[in-house]
């Protein structure tokens, strides 16, 4: 099998340069995506879904390019509120807030945004270049991952974030596992309602996005209420393109984190159903574990922003690989793209790649161009969005809360959104105050029903034989890595204690 089909590539370039419309939709698509991603409560998936009807009268290539531009824009858009107000615009930007917001609190909001934009741009580019080179092989590789592997990857995401978020490990793990459990509320795999306690509104489960906004953002607003501005020092409250550009260029000094995050994002993005929400967390945890001083993470370490943004953006390329090669959506965003495929009577999968390689190459090349365009459009958008640091917190808190409440209402379309937001804001504040890692609870809530489905599929495949797991080498390797990552903090502290004991005992012996 050859790496790149040159004849198909030439035809793809021909397709791309013969269509003016395909290029005209890129900038509006990026801007719409940035806006949708940046508005708390309006996710990238929701923006894509809202834009889907607009593509009805476009030809297939133009429609896909417009939607992938929205997808790319939303990928970075979520980072802007995560950095400026600790409110991730989407679940994919959860770990961007871990270090992005502390950077903003230190007056480094311009640099954090520039760094996020660079990581996002290069991550997207990396994902698509890798996909371009590996599209011929991707379809066979992804088929090797079954429900056991998917369950282990998802559980890994939860435990990693609980174990490495800092603070008290058992409390954070409890928050994560409790999140997984309440993530299964609603109709279970047997079609019976569970945990609704008589509330029919909970049939579809706890609305994840309002719960996430409540746990992570509104709870933080209560703590912010004591300050006058997000950025304390007046002289740091500047809006500076120069500093944003400097932050953008600073990504070169974090190239290891960038490459690692991009690889993790692309690989995890390719796993159907997992996507950017898990990729950013695993990349963050991996960057923290590999850092010379992990204690700086969570306190404004630029590597945290790079790790998260590179992974969530590169996962787009991975998700597109699964969509194109298998016809399976890697996440919510690609599910909307799949709907766009269906709207244009196109079915993704190995046959589509084999028969329409020129179209696939055209899509991939245009997406690489989009990633570069995002630099310019993103800089303009950041310039507009960063005004928030000049607003007093006593004005910002009520305004952001009302916006979050409206976003929650819009997502659910009923009162469950506002109710969930209010209840989970208080839960989030209590969790954060007593060291229970609200982020772990969010990830658990996000993945609860997904992991349960994988458990059920695995049981169906194995016929209830637990030894089935032993016959899955990828799953076993992942399980060992999961256990190692859980034990890692304890092992490190034991080794450090032994070393310090030896150092203390050394002079006495002399």
């Amino acid at each position, binding site marked *: 099998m050859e790496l790149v089909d040159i004849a198909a590539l030439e035809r793809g370039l021909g397709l791309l340069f013969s269509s003016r419309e395909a290029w005209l939709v890129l900038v509006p698509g990026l801007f719409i995506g940035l806006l949708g991603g940046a508005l708390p409560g309006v996710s990238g998936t929701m923006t894509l879904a809202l834009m889907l009807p607009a593509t009805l009268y476009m030809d297939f290539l133009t429609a896909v390019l417009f939607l992938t531009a929205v997808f790319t824009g939303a990928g970075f858009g979520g980072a802007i509120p995560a950095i400026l107000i600790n409110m991730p615009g989407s679940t994919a930007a959860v770990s961007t807030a871990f270090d992005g917001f502390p950077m903003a609190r230190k007056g480094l909001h311009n640099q954090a945004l520039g760094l996020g934009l660079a990581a996002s741009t290069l991550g997207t580019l990396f994902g698509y270049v890798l996909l371009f080179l590996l599209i011929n092989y991707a379809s066979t590789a992804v088929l090797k991952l079954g429900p056991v592997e998917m369950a282990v990857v998802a559980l890994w995401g939860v435990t990693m974030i609980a174990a490495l978020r800092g603070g008290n490990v058992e409390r954070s793990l409890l928050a994560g596992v*409790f999140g997984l459990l309440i993530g299964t509320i609603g109709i279970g795999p047997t079609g019976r309602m*569970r945990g609704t306690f008589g509330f029919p509104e909970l049939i579809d489960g706890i609305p994840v996005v309002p719960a996430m906004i409540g746990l992570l953002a509104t709870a933080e607003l209560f703590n912010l*209420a004591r300050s006058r501005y997000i950025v304390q020092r007046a002289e740091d409250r500047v809006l500076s393109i120069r500093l944003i550009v400097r932050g953008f260029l600073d990504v070169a000094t974090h190239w290891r984190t960038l490459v690692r995050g991009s690889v993790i994002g692309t690989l995890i993005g390719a796993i159907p159903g997992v996507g950017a929400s898990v990729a950013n967390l695993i990349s963050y945890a991996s960057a923290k574990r590999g850092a010379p001083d992990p204690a700086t993470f969570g306190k404004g370490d630029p590597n945290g922003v790079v790790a998260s943004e590179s992974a969530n953006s590169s996962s787009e390329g991975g998700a597109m690989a699964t969509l194109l090669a298998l016809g399976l959506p890697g996440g919510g965003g690609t599910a909307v793209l799949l709907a766009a495929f269906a709207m244009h009577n196109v079915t993704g999968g190995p046959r589509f790649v084999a028969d329409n390689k020129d179209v696939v190459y055209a899509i991939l090349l245009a997406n690489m161009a989009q990633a570069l365009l995002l630099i310019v459009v993103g800089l303009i958008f950041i310039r507009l969005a960063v005004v928030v640091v000049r607003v007093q917190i006593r004005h910002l808190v009520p305004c952001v809360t009302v*916006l979050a409440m409206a976003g929650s209402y819009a997502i659910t*379309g009923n009162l469950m959104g*506002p*109710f969930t937001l209010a209840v989970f804001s208080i839960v989030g504040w209590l969790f954060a105050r007593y060291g*229970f890692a609200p982020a772990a609870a969010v990830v658990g809530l996000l993945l609860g029903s997904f992991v*349960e489905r994988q458990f059920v599929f695995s049981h169906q495949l194995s016929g209830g034989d637990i030894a089935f797991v032993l016959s899955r080498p990828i799953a076993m390797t992942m399980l060992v890595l999961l256990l190692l990552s859980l034990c890692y903090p304890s092992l490190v502290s034991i080794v450090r204690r032994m070393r310090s004991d030896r150092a203390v005992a050394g002079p006495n012996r002399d």
Partner: protein
Amino acid sequence: MSDARLAALDRAGPVLIALVCAVFSVVYVAAAYLDSSRIHNVIFIIPMAAITGVLAGIVIVRAVLGRARAETPAEPSPSSEPKSEPKSEPAPEPGEAPALGPLGIAALMGLLIAYAFSIPWIGFDVASILFMATGLWILGERRPLFVAALSLAFGLGVTWLLLHGARVPAHTLLL
């Protein structure tokens, strides 16, 4: 509530949260099992509830032991539990608004709950305006005209966007 009682409640926070998680898990799994004991209905939630129970037990034991050690004058507080205690608020910097104490935060939380649960009765528009006005006041904004103008403009503006931008058939009273 006196300061001593508030402090005692604060210290019991981790234990109470762990207890609530454990009790909820048991009730949830028991109700699900009684409803349908088929393997696929409980294959995931029983192990998760068991892990929740074990972790809650560890959290409770460590919190209780940590407090007992801290209260023993002969032995200083161990390093195993430094992060379990609630963080004390740093002193406000010059020029900052006075710190919002526990009562202020409780008032904001109560206001948020009242905001969400009043929407079915007074509509999203009026609830938003009232939340904005009261929230601004709690947070220290004392200019009545500013409070009224911002609350009205923002509350009505967001409601309009919700109704006509996102096309959500929201409960409203004025719009």
